[in-house]
């Protein structure tokens, strides 16, 4: 018979994970609207792979399969992978990505709650290092014909008609490799991929994720610290540099509403397992990710820096936590008796 406390608040890991999935839905809906149903195929593919891999690993490790499979954590990882990978990525790319996330990044470390790295971001970073070109082929916005996309995923691939560089990639390529006189304004005005605020279509997907994020905040599944620190830092850094030299540095709206920034702010950065847990640590952690994201996006070799930034801060998370422990009851400053 168990010891006190004898009754518990109704809450479970499963319900937390399900609400995270629910919060992803608005963003997914917009994503499908602009980029086609291939996203859904990827989600299905990733989910099935993730559940199978999770079940296999649990079995191998001698853990109760059904109990842990039902917690939904594998699904969250799978969905995040599907949403960060190109929707027209070949099927095996997604499968290998999911396997590396579930098997290597999660279960080799002891499974749920014990992985020091964000599994979805491990998958993304691994795949973009290994297959940089495949990871940069995105469907053209508004080109939502399903059949070519299906072929792109399961072959035979004929991509020329349907792909397009992502806004981040297009801007980086233009600024880095084109002639030295290229300016941000010139590039943004010249290509169809750029929209009013961020990337065309991308800005609305970001809005969808933002709504989901607000839901997570309202459900108290995440705290304000991480999204706020992430978005604020990205805003401040990008505005600062855009004001300093608007020809070389693109402004904050582009950074916030393009690529994985919103998804990252509410769904990736906020992963509690691999991130920081103290209030101050959360702020430092998320701000660090934003800063590194901006640096990698602006100067680095990869189109989006969020995955690497998250992994880099994952590395630093234990140390940040250790050094930001909140004062314990009675060990605070004397006379701090505010109500």
């Amino acid at each position, binding site marked *: 018979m168990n010891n006190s406390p004898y009754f518990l608040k109704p809450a479970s890991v499963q319900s937390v994970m399900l609400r995270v999935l629910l919060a992803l839905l608005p963003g997914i809906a917009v994503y499908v609207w602009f980029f086609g149903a291939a996203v859904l195929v990827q989600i299905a593919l990733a989910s099935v792979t993730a559940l199978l891999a999770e079940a296999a690993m649990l079995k191998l490790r001698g853990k*109760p399969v059904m*109990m842990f499979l039902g917690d939904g954590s594998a699904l969250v990882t799978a969905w995040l992978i599907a949403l960060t990978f190109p929707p027209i990525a070949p099927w095996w790319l997604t499968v290998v990505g999911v396997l590396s996330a579930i098997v290597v990044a999660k279960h080799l470390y002891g499974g749920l709650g014990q992985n020091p790295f964000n599994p979805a971001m491990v998958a993304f970073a691994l795949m973009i290092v290994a297959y940089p070109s495949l990871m940069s082929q995105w469907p053209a916005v508004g080109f939502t014909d399903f059949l070519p996309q299906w072929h792109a995923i399961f072959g035979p691939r004929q991509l020329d008609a349907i792909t397009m560089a992502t806004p981040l990639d297009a801007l980086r390529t233009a600024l880095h490799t084109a002639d030295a006189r290229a300016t941000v304004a010139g590039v943004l005005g010249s290509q169809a991929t750029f929209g009013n605020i961020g990337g065309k279509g991308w800005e609305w997907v970001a809005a969808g994720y933002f709504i989901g994020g607000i839901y997570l905040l309202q459900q108290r599944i995440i705290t304000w610290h991480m999204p706020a620190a992430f978005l604020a830092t990205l805003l401040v850094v990008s505005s600062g540099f855009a004001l300093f030299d608007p020809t070389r540095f693109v402004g904050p709206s582009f950074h916030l509403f393009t690529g994985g920034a919103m998804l990252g702010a509410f769904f990736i950065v906020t992963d509690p397992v691999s991130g920081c847990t103290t209030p101050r640590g959360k702020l430092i952690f998320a701000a660090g990710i934003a800063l590194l994201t901006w640096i990698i996006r602006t100067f680095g070799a990869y189109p989006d820096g969020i995955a690497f930034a998250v992994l880099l801060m994952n590395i630093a998370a234990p140390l940040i936590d250790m050094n930001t422990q909140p004062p314990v009851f009675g060990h605070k400053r004397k006379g701090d008796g505010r109500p």
Partner: protein
Amino acid sequence: MFDALFVMALGAIVLGAALGYAAVRFRVEGDPLVEKIDAILPQTQCGQCGFPGCKPYAQAVAKGEAEINQCPPGGEEGIHKLADLLGREFKPLSAEHGIEKPKAVALIDEQTCIGCTLCIQACPVDAIVGAAKQMHTVIAGQCTGCELCLPPCPVNCISMEPIPESVENWKWKYPVIKLVAAQEVAR
């Protein structure tokens, strides 16, 4: 060729001189590590490690002459602590030095005791009181359970009694993960 030899010889002389000076300048005396190791050892002074007492064993460990897994009363936990302190790998308790036993204290059967004082002389921590021709008794609170008093007793009147569990020394057990409850959730 000469150049090369000259250069290397010069280097050797300069570096050798610097090292020689440093060896004199930074000579180390004493070894505070022994105290740290001794603090981890259980102080039973039982000699099971092959050294006459805890301090000599600590000295041997500090010098690298003894393994860290020779102390049965310290148990696995003591080995872990030593491994941590010394940055060595954990090793299971060496079987030739004995096995980890539950803590016990010596008890003298007062009917049989002949008052020979041999056990008093054997006790390393003066936990046995008594005088010649008088009955002896063990001060249980001071007995370390080293068992050194057992062999000298000519009438075998000393036995080791495990310390019984009481409300005072009872420990909360490691929480067991109950998997049977899974069915109840499904219900």
